[in-house]
């Protein structure tokens, strides 16, 4: 701060002939200059932008008070369709780190933002760019990419963060990025990662035990975003209210779903905050199943302000509905 004041004073001071009456004016000029310099000088903390709230949560776990985290998408909105609003350009412009999915989930809105942000620090390949899907084996990579199959992601299903084991890997990449860019605090980030890893490892025992009685059970979801969660906890989530990804439920398809649910005695329908809950309720009342509100993102459900709490909530909600 002193530096800023000195710089401002040096620039503002035009020599000894400055009169006393202009002192106020000078102070004002100092303030203006200080305001201009603050963004350039005050960069003690790493400025982290996460496209989605789950990445943001991990960034907070790893970065603690050494980073400032900005999350672009809202926890309650459809992550495929986020407006590329200009204020995001402002966030990205000054980012030291950008964490994105890297699996085309944000392809409808991130590229034009990056074009306009003009920030070389967060280019792909730089330590300031964490692409969460790196090193993750994406599931359901289509052999044939055709939009006749709906909103199919060519690189595979991008909703991978509901698997805590994957979340650990993402957290590790985040820790690596932070440590590279802020080596003074590398030990801090490393320790936070270890803490997160230990927490997830311990929690996995709990979650695994809770879900064990339901191994092999079938669950219906509105959209195909739970394949990784299902894989982790031994569920089958392969019937969807959407006839194809991104295509709204049609009456004829719902009739089929209802028949299938009755035949397999399916007890739960997973919906997310942005889905049309009324459709799920209708199917539920026709089949005796329960509608379970799920979210891919911390903050998407009440009391889930971080990743561990989110999975806690998902596991306990689903277990309760499957009993």
């Amino acid at each position, binding site marked *: 701060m002193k530096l800023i004041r000195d710089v401002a004073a040096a620039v503002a001071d035009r020599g000894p002939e400055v009169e006393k009456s202009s002192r106020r004016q000078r102070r004002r000029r100092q303030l203006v200059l200080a305001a201009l310099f603050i963004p350039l000088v005050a960069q003690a903390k790493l400025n982290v932008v996460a496209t989605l709230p789950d990445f943001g949560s991990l960034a907070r776990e790893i970065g603690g008070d050494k980073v400032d985290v900005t999350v672009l998408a*809202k926890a*309650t909105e459809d992550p495929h369709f986020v407006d590329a609003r200009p204020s995001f350009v402002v966030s990205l412009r000054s980012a030291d780190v950008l964490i994105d999915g890297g699996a085309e989930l944000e392809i409808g809105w991130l590229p034009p933002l990056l074009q306009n942000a*003009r920030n070389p620090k967060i280019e792909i390949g730089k330590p300031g760019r964490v692409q969460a899907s790196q090193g993750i084996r994406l599931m359901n990579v289509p*052999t044939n990419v055709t939009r006749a199959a709906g909103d199919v992601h060519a690189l595979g299903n991008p909703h991978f963060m509901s698997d805590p084991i994957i979340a650990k890997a993402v957290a590790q990449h985040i820790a690596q990025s932070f440590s590279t860019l802020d080596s003074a605090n590398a030990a801090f980030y490393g320790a936070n990662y270890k803490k997160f890893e230990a927490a997830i490892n311990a929690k996995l025992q709990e979650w695994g035990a809770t879900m064990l009685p339901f191994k092999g059970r079938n669950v219906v979801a509105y959209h195909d975003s739970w394949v990784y969660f299902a894989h982790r906890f031994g569920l089958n989530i*392969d019937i969807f209210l959407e006839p194809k990804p*991104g295509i709204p439920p049609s009456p004829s398809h719902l009739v089929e779903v209802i028949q299938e649910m009755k035949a397999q005695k399916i007890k739960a329908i997973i919906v997310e905050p942005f889905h*049309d809950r009324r459709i799920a309720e209708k199917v539920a009342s026709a089949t005796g199943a329960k509608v379970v509100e799920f979210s891919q993102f911390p903050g998407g459900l009440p009391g889930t302000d971080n990743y561990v709490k989110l999975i806690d909530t998902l596991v306990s909600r689903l277990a309760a509905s499957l009993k």
Partner: protein
Amino acid sequence: MRKFILVTLAIIPAAIASAQGAAPASTSSPAPAVSNSTPASSADVEALRQQVQSLTETVKALQQQVKDQQIVLEKASLARESALPQNPEPSPIAATANSPAPAAGARSRFPTEDTSVVASTTAPAAPSGAGVNENGSALPGSFPTTDTSVVTSTPETISSTGAGASLTQPITIAGGGKNYMNISFDGLFALAYSSARDLDHIEVGDHDPQQRGFNARNIELAFDGAVDPYFEGFANIVFKLDNDNQTQVEVEEAFLQTTNLPFNLQLKGGQFFAAFGRINPTHPHTWDFADDPLVHGLFLGPDGLRGVGGQISWTLPTPWYSQLLLGVQNGRGSTGYSFRNPGDNGIFFGRMTTDRELRGLQDFVWIPRWENSVDLSPTQVVLAGVSGAFGSNETGANARTQIYGADFLYKWKSSHAESGFPFVKWQTEAIYRRFEAGRGVDESFPVAETFHDWGMYSQLLWGFKKGWVAGVRGDYLHMTDSEFTADLDRQSRSRVSADLTWYPTEFSKIRLQYNHDFLEENFFLAGRDVDSVFLQFEFILGSHGAHKF
């Protein structure tokens, strides 16, 4: 661990050999100390001592070798990790082989690692193999996917939710897709009916419906992608069918722009739409109505203001979004409509036009713009801008044109939006044109006059349900009366429109639009009112680059 021991054993002979070779070099501090501290003694003892010494050195060298080997292994695993995304198979084996076996929580019942999904861990992976098998193989299921054949043989690739869903390769290049560029094809068609026989006199945009019946006015190839680490390239090639079904081709846009200039600067060069207002820089298929607003088509031109030129833009270091742009273009021909445009048959606004070469900087069109945006709340965004376009026109030797515009956009989108719905969007643009109409070539026209024309449109769109948008629009245009021209393009007029659009997905749309036009007396129409109905349909093939806000 076993592998490690094997490796160590394998290198022992080599280590011994190298230790012997390297012995003099590696006897650093302790060896001289030993030899110095010993006084002379019997030859046997000396020989023994030497033997011991050489053995010590061998052991030391071996230790060093082992250390080196560990470093090499670590490096290798790091390299493997960074190379992973391109590499289909390798890591699970590597990860398990690398992992120190005596991990603390090795007895946990639920697996905490899974090499089948996480390809690159450097962290100790505890009981992965067993857990994976337990987790994976235990689950019967009925996932109806088609790609069961991929990598099912290796133990680490397990079926996820059962039969169908197979795990597959790691992604290739994250985020960038698999191509060097986006290539898309966009077809925009309209079925039109109008109470006016000559719809092309009513509609002002070149890509609007131009005749009763079917219209194919905007069939477009779009390309975009990274040129190299410094530039991105864009191109839009438009094909359109005229009213006699003859194909016309337009190089609508073809430009490159920089990606990483310092100080938040960006340069753009080539053929491109001028950054003037909201409608002008966008392609017709992104518009919320089937036709061009009057004020845009008649002031900036039927094809919009676009041309060959350059542009520099700077995002200001302000806490809100604020950008300054300055473009410069030739402004020649019909895409520089109000500027160096010789007009149809060499006549513009009644004048026989000069059609001259560039004389200096004043003959370019200069296009400054300043735009700002703030988020009123997490669900509300406002964007406002002012633009200008300044240059010469062809109605006289020194005739000038100045165009000023102001635009405003408000958008609300639900915090629980699915596919971007529901939303409300209000967009307004007002444009003023000062046009010095000279006396034409060789002073052939009786007078010189200055037109002060202005107009605006305002449109409100309501995305009330996933895929469904309803809209209304009002258009108003005031043209200065001229005693000397009865030009159709100089009529004051207005229009109201309403439309309903259904987007089955973001790659297709069907739109029904109704227009009611209020016109001045004219030669081609009995009445002054025109009713038109358009049924527009569109499809997009391929990967189309995402649009700006």
